[in-house]
């Protein structure tokens, strides 16, 4: 089950903890992976770790021209993009009343608009192939909201609505579009939390532990696989029971 041999995968945000693990797991299942991110160092290190079947494609998702160029670069490197994982995302947290237009726009631009553009960029090839998988990494806060994250939550909820609409349009062509919504996942970002903060978070998680990047990667592998082909327009919540949606 879940064999990805012969599939070409583009993962954005592969320089981060979750994106890197998604690439690792899909690669481990046999896929060719294109690793995209803004920081070249971690991408090159990951590509070296994976060995064959790994390509590095640096891209600044806040730059529209770079976003347009990314699917083309991925197709040039791998021959096609059969699976797109939109994992890259940024936060610019602030209280709603203090949030600037710039903080709002930059988060919507990178998290939602670049996802839209990348989906559009890979669809032509998927339509022709009559096969494709798009997995958009949303967030628990897109469903629950979170104080200080109006922009981020809006971008992640927007991703869900966008994915469902696209899923409708392309389902008859063998293309599925789904979201994975992580809860609290242990990454470099959560390392910065104090033990006290972590303790408080854990009281809200029935599983009584933070998730691992591997938990998210496994969900992506399922949705990207041939076996996940009848699942589309769905949001798979991976959050240890923190929000049962």
């Amino acid at each position, binding site marked *: 089950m879940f064999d990805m041999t012969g599939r070409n995968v583009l993962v954005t945000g592969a320089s981060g903890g979750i994106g890197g693990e998604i690439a690792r797991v899909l690669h481990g299942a046999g896929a060719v992976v294109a690793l995209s991110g803004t920081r070249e160092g971690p991408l090159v290190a990951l590509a070296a770790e994976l060995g064959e079947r790994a390509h590095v494609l640096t891209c600044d998702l806040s730059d529209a021209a770079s976003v347009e160029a990314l699917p083309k670069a991925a197709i040039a490197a791998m021959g096609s993009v059969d699976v797109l994982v939109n994992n890259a995302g940024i936060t610019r947290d602030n209280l709603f009343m203090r949030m600037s237009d710039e903080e709002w726009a930059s988060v919507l631009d990178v998290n939602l608009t670049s996802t839209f553009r990348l989906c559009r960029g890979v669809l*032509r090839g998927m*339509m*022709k192939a009559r096969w494709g998988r798009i997995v958009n990494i949303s967030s628990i806060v897109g469903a629950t909201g979170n104080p200080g994250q109006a922009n981020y939550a809006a971008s992640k909820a927007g991703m869900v609505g966008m994915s469902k609409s696209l899923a409708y*349009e*392309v389902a*008859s*062509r063998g293309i599925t579009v789904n979201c994975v919504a992580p809860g609290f996942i242990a990454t470099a970002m959560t390392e910065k939390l104090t033990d006290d903060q972590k303790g408080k978070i854990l009281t809200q998680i029935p599983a009584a532990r933070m998730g691992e990047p591997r938990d998210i990667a496994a969900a992506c592998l399922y949705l990207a696989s041939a076996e996940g082909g009848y699942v589309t327009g769905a949001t798979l919540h991976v959050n240890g029971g923190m929000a049962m949606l």
Partner: protein
Amino acid sequence: MSDIADRVKKIVVEHLGVEENKVVENASFIDDLGADSLDTVELVMAFEEEFGIEIPDDAAETIQTFGDAVKFITSAA
């Protein structure tokens, strides 16, 4: 029939799975040949590749029939 019309017809027949004799001058892709809106997008993509041309969205909207497609491509190619 022109070479362009033959190539367009071949694409339409293959893509929509219709009988060749149904693909006539005034045949509407949607009303007569059973295409849905996504099929029309795919047809335009296929025409672009076959003839090495760009068909802008506003022009694509005017291509409703087989005859429209042949006429547009003849003038663009």
